[in-house]
């Protein structure tokens, strides 16, 4: 059977009886255990992904409240509302929350939820690891927040520069809370990334060759690769910091007098810290691409260019970190190289913007809330990108560095570049979460108010920075003349709060009483929209065979589906990396409580490491038994092939199968 194409493998064997029988089996095979154990042990990527997004939005709210408190404090010169101690804890927790507990996890959560659906499969490659990652993230986040609530929040800034965060000046356990939070959330990010990469490499539906992968999936994969090379730096840095501080350990990594180096901390942190921005931004660009394609009703302009620019951004993103250190006493030549690379990164971002503009220019707009948020994204993000060009210039940065100009810049980039697309994505995908649409009018009000509030808060900050206001000051003197602009910013913060409240009310209302959505209310092109809303736990009744880049737009009524998977085991089809030719049936483990147990041990080990080094060996012993239980409960021993029905042509040799030529 050489050189046969798809049509030779297809036969009309699906009868109603068989479909019904298989559906019943699928429902019970893929369902969770009942009760609280079931809730703790679920391996359903949709539940875990949603939980992650939900938790991240909770942290977003907390972080936002903290931002509001800071704006209250800064609204008047010489204000006494928060003292320096509280203010320092609050801005540190705000920054750490938004970066570690909101922005990265929410993007991972969206990836965990939608990547398997978009590539037409039923699960992530390692579903049990997935839930483990969620719990470690949750424990890390709770650790930070209970620290703040108990007035022991970290107070050395979200990048915790030594020596201020070191053993001599970072008094007490506050910075330890921060460093253990970082370790826990980064474990979670690394787990999610490995999972997403392998899933996309090996579990794509047949026919989804590399050049047909939806852009959001590409963005998640590229982000995941970045996470794998960026996050270890901060994990090591935070572990070394906690070792420097720890009782009976007291290492000297950042102690210059004993051969350490405080600037090394900055290198390690920013080697993670700058890619981190792209780790947040690249998934958002995936969302922008999805929304623009769907709502301009045409194929994406420059698909290949968009993928390549994401890859380029990821690469260059690792070579620009020193622009955060332009005012440190480092050799100038090296710094100039980083000016060049920091400016270079504008080029791929520019290409992205131009491709999106071209798609919009050439398409017909279906002007709904998600698209309106994307317009807001353009208005805000482009300005943030351009102020980024200013910060890339070494001489100019010496004036702008560590001022409110920088605060303005990174909020334009992060809120503009990530939160606007994210809100758009929530409006876009909300029907998939619960089967109902968010209210359009409230959505438009949310977008406009959020935009106005945002500009009021952050535009004046550019000017504040130029007229001398450094960041991280808990107050300022009346004679500095910064009062009016700060008051304006604080008023803007109130507008943003109102806008966000509209969103939350809208979300809660629509979740229960919103307009019921059809499976594909926007006429979108990716596979998740072929599923009923809300999505059943087994997701695809039959995994699809993909026939084009815009899967739903290019499929026909008789596009083939995958059969022959074992319906009593959790099986999906595993395909080859490049062409997505089926190569084996991949069975995954069902739910287990062990990931929860292991994550509790991990959390306890890391929290214990604030107090005693013995938590490491003790924790490892406990983990040994935890993983023993995990390993032992991997109960699927034999998976005999699922008996094919009669008359069904047998699928012989993976090499025989060739996907339909992709339209490039």
């Amino acid at each position: 059977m050489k050189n046969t194409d798809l049509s030779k493998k297809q036969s009309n064997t699906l009868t109603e009886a068989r479909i019904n029988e298989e559906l019943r089996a699928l429902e019970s095979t893929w369902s969770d255990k009942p009760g609280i154990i079931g809730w703790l042990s679920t391996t359903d990527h949709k539940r875990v992904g949603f939980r992650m997004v939900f938790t991240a939005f909770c942290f977003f709210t907390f972080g936002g409240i903290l931002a509001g408190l800071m704006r209250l404090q800064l609204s008047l010169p010489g204000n006494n509302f928060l003292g320096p101690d509280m203010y320092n804890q609050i801005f540190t927790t705000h920054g750490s929350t938004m970066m570690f507990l909101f922005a990265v996890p929410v993007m991972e959560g969206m990836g965990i939820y939608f990547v398997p659906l978009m590539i037409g499969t039923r699960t992530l490659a390692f579903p049990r690891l997935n839930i483990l990652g969620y719990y470690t993230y949750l424990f890390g986040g709770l650790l930070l927040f209970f620290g703040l609530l108990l007035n022991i929040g970290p107070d050395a800034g979200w990048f915790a520069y030594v020596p201020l965060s070191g053993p001599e000046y970072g008094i007490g356990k506050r910075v330890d809370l921060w460093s253990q939070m970082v370790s826990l959330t980064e474990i979670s990010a690394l787990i999610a990334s490995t999972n997403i990469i392998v899933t996309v490499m090996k579990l794509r539906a047949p026919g989804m060759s590399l050049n047909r992968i939806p852009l959001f999936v590409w963005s998640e994969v590229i982000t995941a690769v970045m996470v794998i090379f960026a996050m270890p730096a901060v994990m090591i840095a935070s572990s070394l910091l906690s070792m420097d501080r720890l009782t009976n350990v007291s290492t000297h990594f950042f102690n210059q007098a004993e051969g350490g180096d405080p600037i090394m901390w900055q290198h390690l942190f920013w080697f993670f810290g700058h890619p981190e921005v792209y780790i947040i931004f690249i998934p958002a660009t995936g969302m922008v691409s999805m929304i623009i394609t769907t709502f301009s009703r045409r194929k994406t302009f420059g698909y290949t260019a968009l993928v390549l620019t994401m890859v380029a951004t990821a690469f260059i993103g690792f070579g620009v970190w020193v622009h955060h250190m332009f005012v440190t006493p480092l050799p100038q030549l090296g710094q100039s190289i980083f000016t060049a690379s920091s400016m270079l990164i504008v080029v791929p971002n520019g290409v992205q913007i131009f491709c999106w503009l071209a798609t919009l220019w050439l398409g017909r707009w279906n002007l709904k809330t998600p698209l309106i948020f994307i317009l807001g994204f353009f208005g805000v993000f482009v300005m943030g990108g351009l102020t980024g060009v200013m910060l890339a210039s070494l001489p100019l940065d010496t004036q702008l560095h560590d001022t409110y100009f920088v605060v303005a810049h990174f909020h334009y980039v992060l809120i503009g570049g990530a939160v606007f697309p994210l809100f758009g994505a929530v409006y876009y995908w909300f029907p998939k979460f619960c089967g109902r649409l968010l209210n359009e009018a409230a959505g438009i009000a949310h977008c406009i108010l959020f935009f106005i509030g945002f500009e009021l808060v952050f535009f004046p900050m550019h000017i504040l920075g130029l007229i001398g206001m450094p960041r991280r000051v808990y107050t300022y003197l009346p004679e500095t003349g910064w009062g009016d602009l700060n008051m304006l910013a604080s008023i803007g913060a109130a507008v943003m709060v109102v806008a966000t409240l509209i969103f939350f009310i809208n979300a809660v209302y629509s979740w229960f009483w919103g307009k019921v959505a059809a499976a594909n209310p926007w006429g979108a092109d990716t596979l998740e929209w072929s599923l009923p809303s809300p999505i059943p736990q087994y997701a695809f009744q039959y995994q699809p065979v993909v026939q084009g880049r815009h899967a739903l737009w290019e499929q026909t009524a008789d596009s083939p589906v995958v059969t022959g998977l074992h319906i009593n085991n959790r099986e999906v089809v595993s395909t080859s990396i490049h062409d997505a030719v089926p190569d084996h049936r991949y069975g995954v483990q069902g739910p287990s409580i062990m990931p929860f147990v292991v994550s509790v041990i991990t959390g306890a080990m890391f929290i214990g490491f604030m107090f005693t080094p013995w938590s490491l060996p003790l924790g490892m012993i406990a983990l040994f038994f935890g993983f023993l239980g995990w390993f032992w409960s991997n109960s699927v021993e034999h998976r005999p092939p699922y008996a094919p029905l009669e008359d069904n042509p047998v699928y012989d040799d993976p090499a025989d199968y060739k996907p339909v030529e992709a339209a490039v």
Partner: protein
Amino acid sequence: MTRVSSQLKAASLLASACVFFFSCGHGNQSAVEPTGLQAEHLSFLWWIFLAITAAVYVVVMVILVAAFFRTQRAAAGDEADLSPDPSREKRASSVVKAAVAVTVLTMFALMLVSFRTGRALDTLSQAQTPLEIKVTGQQWWWQIEYKDPTPSNMVTTANEIHIPIGRPIKLELVSHDVIHSFWAPNFHGKKDLIPNYPTTLFFRADEPGVYWGQCAEFCGFEHAKMRFMVVAEPQEDFERWYAASQQPAPEPVTDSQKFGRDIFLKSVCTQCHTIQGTPANGRVGPNLTHVGGKPYIASGSLPNDRENLAKWITDPQAIKPGIRMPMNTYSPEELNALVDYIQSLK
């Protein structure tokens, strides 16, 4: 909807621009109102960057708004366009390519301007006979030491730098605790003071005046109130000030001042502060030899008058919570005398 949002955008830009002009009155701590050679280079660079990036922003927004008005509207049910008109696609593709080329060229131009400015900034460090000042960042104040070949001629003060105009200044920046950053925006960009990484900063003041600067790297509780004053004055004024600063503290004259000195010397003050010409020689806090003549106390956060001095001495923690100066209890007469004495230290 986009129309509304873009109009709002324009309005907010306009409003912000207005605010910008209004706020220009406070130019004594501003990066865009340079009064020194270095800051002028930087300010020039800033306006170039602003002009170019603003132009780019406007172009992108115009394209977006134009797209909003000219594209047709569609509904969700409308068939998606999978095989668009090839000639239009090709035109769009050429435009995109051209835009990318323009982006690359613009970036390159900005990079060149940036490098040139960097080189221009470096020329000052070649200057002969700069005035050398050692600045030590401490939690949360600045120690200023004027270098002199004769140690007894060295002047030590705090939070107030007097400089002659027109002469290059060489700052030696040092920190012994955490990272601080020295920033006087009217003269130059900032430079970090990292423990064990001594560094230098060159600048020149071209116009006389009083300018402010402050710590720009988060350094603990009172980072916000770690300010300093730069007084740029003509050479002769500077010399007069310098000569006066080399003198020991004036002897108290009135009875109250004498009583105040006795209190000062008997109480906790001497553990941390130095007053030259008296036994007080603590090195922990600022040197108070000429504190009476300074316009500000508490690292530039309080005007120097009787009331503030009394407040500062009795309850510094209310003004700068977390600062290392303890609270002190004095009877009203004692406090009065102490303030008299400190004010006499011109």
